[in-house]
């Protein structure tokens, strides 16, 4: 293959290169700075994280959470009569956003409920921070506004009390340890 044809290949691929370049810029900008929340703070992440926007912690309002890559889980739970579609950012996306470096996470709910989950859960089952159930915004009344949801229907091994206990309602804080 001669020089000419090599150049022509590069020309043809120019848009790809460009998008890669700008994409990486955007990503690094995202990773570098976490903007301050403008609305009501729904979730506070603290502990071993690299991205912060309020002292030692990273705070998120609804807009910031909605801006994270979203996932969906359709599953039955013991607390709902029928299977429902839960939507919101995955826990992994949140941890990427704050640069979490821990091996376990302590979750606290508004009603003072506390539970620890290991890092493996995040990789193995992909739990999400559900903000919507069946396209309706979760409220405190419907165990929101942030509800940690595991895909119970997808994995038989997590259909236990332990994982029901890890599905935290009215989640307000995560400490990375």
């Amino acid at each position, binding site marked *: 293959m001669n020089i000419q044809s090599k150049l022509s290949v590069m020309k043809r691929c120019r848009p790809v290169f460009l998008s890669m370049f700008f994409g990486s810029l955007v990503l690094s900008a995202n990773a570098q700075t976490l903007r301050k929340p403008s609305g009501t703070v729904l979730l506070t992440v603290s502990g071993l994280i690299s991205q912060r926007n309020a002292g030692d912690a990273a705070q998120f309002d609804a807009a910031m959470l909605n801006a994270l890559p979203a996932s969906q889980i359709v599953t039955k739970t013991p607390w709902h009569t029928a299977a429902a579609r839960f939507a919101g950012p995955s826990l992994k996306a949140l941890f990427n956003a704050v640069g979490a470096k821990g091996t376990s996470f302590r979750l606290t709910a508004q*009603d003072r409920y506390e539970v620890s989950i290991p890092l493996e859960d995040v990789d193995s089952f992909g739990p999400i921070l559900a903000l919507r159930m069946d396209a309706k915004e979760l*409220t*405190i*009344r419907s165990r929101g506004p942030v509800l940690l949801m595991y895909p119970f229907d997808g994995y038989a091994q997590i259909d236990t009390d332990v994982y029901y206990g890890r599905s935290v*309602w009215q989640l307000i804080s995560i400490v990375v340890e």
Partner: protein
Amino acid sequence: MAEVPPSGRFLSLPYFKDRSHRFIATLACAMLVMVCAVGWFQYEQIDRITLTSVKGKDNIVWDFYKLEILLIDYQAALREVIAHPGKRALLPTVYQDYNLFVSQIQTADIVSSGQIMNGRLSFKTAVAMAGDYIQSADIYLESEPSTLDAHVAIALLEPSIALRAALHKVVLEAYQVENFRATQSLKETRRFTFLYGVSSFFLVVLALATGILTLRRFVLNDRLQFERAELLREKKEAAEAANKAKARFLSSASHDLRQPAHALGLFMERIEQVSDDPQSKELVAHAMSAVREMQDMLDSMFDLSQLDSDSAPTKVRAFAIQDVFESLCSVLESDAATKGLRLRFRPSEVWLQSDASLLHRILLNLVSNAIRYTDRGTVLVACRPSRAGTHVRIEVRDSGIGIAAEHQDKVFQEYYQVANPQRDRRFGMGVGLSVVERCCRLLKHPLTLRSGPGAGTRITVEVPLAQSIPETECHTFSSNQMNDVRISAHVLLIEDDKMCRVALAGLLESWGYSVLAVESAKMAVEQFHTQAPPAIIISDFRLGGETNGMEAIRLLRALTGREVAACLISGDTSHEVQQLVKAAGLTLLSKPVRPGKLRSLLRHLALK
């Protein structure tokens, strides 16, 4: 035939033949099952105890107390609103606390603690009251209110106080329930620990008991084995003693019988010479053959007793088999001829390495046996090379009645005869083959028997060939060739048994010898002075007095001052006596003496 059922085959395995083995195996199986059962039981207990202890930790009190706290938070927020009417910043807290409480109380009967308390009156009351309260409060607080009047706040606070009391009752009852569950769990733990301890103790006892039982059984087995060995040893000793006694009896009986047989033989020899009447000659011939038969029997009995004593030494040397054949031929020819049989010795040039006299005895027994059990046809004795020429198989083959397979391993036992259930004396006593077997064992010559009923018998003895042939031909077996040359010489005969003395003296005189017969060494010495010195001394080995025949000969030789030719006759041909006589350089003739043998010996001595 039906198939043996597998269980039967299993139980008939060699390991389970013994009753005690079966017992131990059963015990082991039972133990295994028991251990498994106890293990499973303990495992189940552990499972149960874990479950109950987990249940005990459910902490349902906290779940309900949390609800109460949420309600208290809500009440506090309401009181803030009542205290600062118009302060809008307080409203989100009221809204939030209310909805937190509602979201939790609405799922109270779904969560596990609610399920435990479900059905209890306090719980039902509290849930019903909460439902009523929520219906009235939702109007104001389901969505975030923009304003909240103080009166409304008071109206919301009032019924919540009763609701809190009801919730508190649930908490108290939950405490009781939890306490009860914890107590149950504790009891369960105690029961489990007790059961675990008991079953473990049971296991230990079981293991110990099995150990002790097994040990005891082993000890018992050991003792039994020891006793059995002891019993066996005693039996063996008894058998050996009996065998020894038998051998002794046989030895002494044959010895004692030899004396009269000896005399009888000598007398018969004389009678044969003196009778002219053809009728009496025939009778005498019959009597002679009977006497010979008797002497043969005595010989073989004596052979057996000697071989039994085990000390019989073998004198292995090189000799020509042909000599043995010739000797046997001369002895047995007449027997064969009497029965109308053809007795053939195939001439052979080989020299063998063996004990000539024992081999002679072996073949004598084999051939005479063959003649005895063959009615017509041939008895053939032949040598065949074997083992690549290092050995020779001497075959004795007959065309006789043969031996059935089931008898073949018994014929070599003493006194066993195949076709002689009436134990006819004419057929011998059945000791012949046992003598053969013993001699062969002594010489380590393999003995084989091939036979079938009516198909004749072939017995072979395998003998090694001589490595080198001696230059001077040694002793050959002199047959009882009668010599008609009459030799007269003076013979001194010392014999304490009167009958033998008279018979022998008569026989000697009939052969032309002048005989002086005395009964003891003392008398011989006395006579010695009055008579001319004898040319030959014949003495019984065992004399009545203190001196034996050998000493008498030595004494007499001392008196004459020269080596007078002498020979000894003895009924006692034990090994020691033979050794003694041999050491003195004398010839020993065993009783009953064959006249022919004695005659040729005397001729030999007289010519010396």
